[in-house]
């Protein structure tokens, strides 16, 4: 029973009218989600700039407030007061609608991410499928933005966005099937409850595939080809300024938060953990994943387009299928009491497969026209 349903029951016992019993918890929950998401996004923006500064041996923003924590708010006020420029030749309607279409699905994702014991808006029994369906809508908004801007750089970025989405959708989806196999359910709450041992130990290969695929889906470095500053300037949001640009910027961090939450839920045991309250455990896991993503951004150079595509199709996709078959066989053959054997086996398989496969093919060299 989720907290929301308990709240409903409480109101029902207090003899509220039916529509109020139905609506009040929903509105309260949604407002909580909005506040939660926006607060974490602000903290994330500060955390990324600060951490990136440390990686590059500088201090990062440290003037506004203690340790520069109010820097994102200062940035937000600055962006709010910027002139709102729409190019003359742009498609005005699409130019306005695109940031909305990018941002709405990201907020929708948080409906099924449990942040604590029972702290979830709706515990859909098809939670995972809902996430897969909703998360791929954003790319339509990105393509709309790039098309409406009437700019060649942004059009290239939009084409790349779709190519990237089409390629990395499959490994992500297939690696989630592995989780569903072991948990026996699509409901996010049930998946968390099924994890006595976090699935990252049980399915290391699945986690690596999901992590890399998710990194590409949220367009973070080293897969951030659609905003590659050095070649296509800023990609799809090149013609955006003011608040509309802020929406893309917020959306970028929002989707990282969403995917970090999904990863924490599916592979790291969600809100489970000893001593500390569930929400703290959830936040710790999310921040660890986010810091790891920043670390990758600070370390790895950007991939080339053809390398990016062949990495998805020739490496991640076969790996995901093999991973799936291995886990299916293990679930059927080995009893549940032999968890540790499964863990050792799977780590061995992951290491062997990655080594073998990386010997088998190269990502191509030489010059390629984009």
């Amino acid at each position, binding site marked *: 029973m989720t907290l*929301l349903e308990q709240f409903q029951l409480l109101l029902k016992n207090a003899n509220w009218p039916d529509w109020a019993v139905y609506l009040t918890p*929903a*509105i309260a929950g*949604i407002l909580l989600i*909005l506040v939660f998401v926006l607060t974490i996004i602000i903290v994330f923006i500060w955390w990324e700039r600060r951490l990136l500064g440390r990686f590059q041996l500088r201090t990062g923003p440290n003037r506004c407030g203690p340790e520069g924590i109010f820097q994102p708010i200062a940035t937000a006020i600055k962006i*709010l*007061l*910027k*002139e*709102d*420029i*729409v*190019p*003359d*030749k742009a498609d005005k309607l699409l130019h306005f609608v695109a*940031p*909305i279409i990018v*941002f709405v699905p990201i*907020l*929708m994702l948080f409906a099924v991410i449990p942040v604590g014991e029972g702290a979830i808006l*709706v*515990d*859909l029994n098809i939670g995972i*499928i809902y996430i897969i369906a909703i998360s791929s809508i954003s790319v339509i908004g990105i393509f709309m933005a790039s*098309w409406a801007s*009437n*700019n*060649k*750089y942004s059009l290239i970025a939009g*084409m790349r966005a*779709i*190519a990237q989405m*089409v*390629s990395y959708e*499959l490994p992500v989806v*297939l690696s989630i*099937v592995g989780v*569903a*196999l072991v948990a*026996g*359910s*699509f409901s996010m709450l049930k998946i968390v409850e099924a994890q006595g041992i976090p699935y990252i130990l049980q399915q290391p290969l699945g986690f690596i595939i999901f992590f890399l695929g998710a990194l590409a889906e949220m367009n973070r470095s080293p897969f951030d080809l659609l905003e590659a500053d050095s070649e296509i*300037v800023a990609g799809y949001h090149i*013609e955006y300024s*003011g*608040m*509309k640009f802020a929406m893309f910027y917020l959306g970028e961090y929002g989707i990282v938060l969403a995917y970090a939450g999904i990863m924490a839920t599916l592979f790291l045991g969600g809100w489970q953990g000893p001593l500390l309250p569930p929400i703290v455990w959830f936040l710790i896991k999310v921040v660890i994943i986010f810091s790891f993503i920043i670390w990758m951004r600070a370390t790895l150079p950007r991939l080339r*387009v*053809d390398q990016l*595509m*062949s990495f998805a*199709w*020739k490496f991640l*996709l076969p790996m995901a*299928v093999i991973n799936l*078959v291995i886990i*299916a066989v293990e*679930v*059927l053959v080995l009893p549940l009491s032999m968890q540790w054997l499964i863990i050792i086996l799977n780590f061995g398989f992951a290491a062997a497969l990655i080594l073998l496969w990386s010997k088998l093919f190269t990502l*191509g060299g030489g010059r390629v026209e984009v």
Partner: protein
Amino acid sequence: MLEQYGYVGILLIVAILFTVTIPLLPILLKAIGLIPQKKNPTKSSQYECGMQTIGKTWVQYNFRYYFLAVLFVLLDMLTIFLYPWAVNIKELGVGGLAAVGIFLIILTVGYVYAWRKGALEWK
């Protein structure tokens, strides 16, 4: 069951209201006069600080991942069939695994063929 989707619907409505409000804020502030508004033909041209674009932007575009898109549709079918099997694997047992194995083998043949033919290359 359907009540839950009602919540998703309410979330959708709130999210849309929230996100529509944000880009409308500058318009409000413009009316008050807080936000500058100085029209300039150069400023509102495409890619303001760079060179003028040669030719039109909205043209037919050779996107290089046509085969990949076709393959994506095919393989996405695979995942649709895998999901119902994944949650019921215990009941379906070895028979179910064998069926999925045959299914995967057929797809693997197609995948290897596509790889050999060079459909996976970005060219």
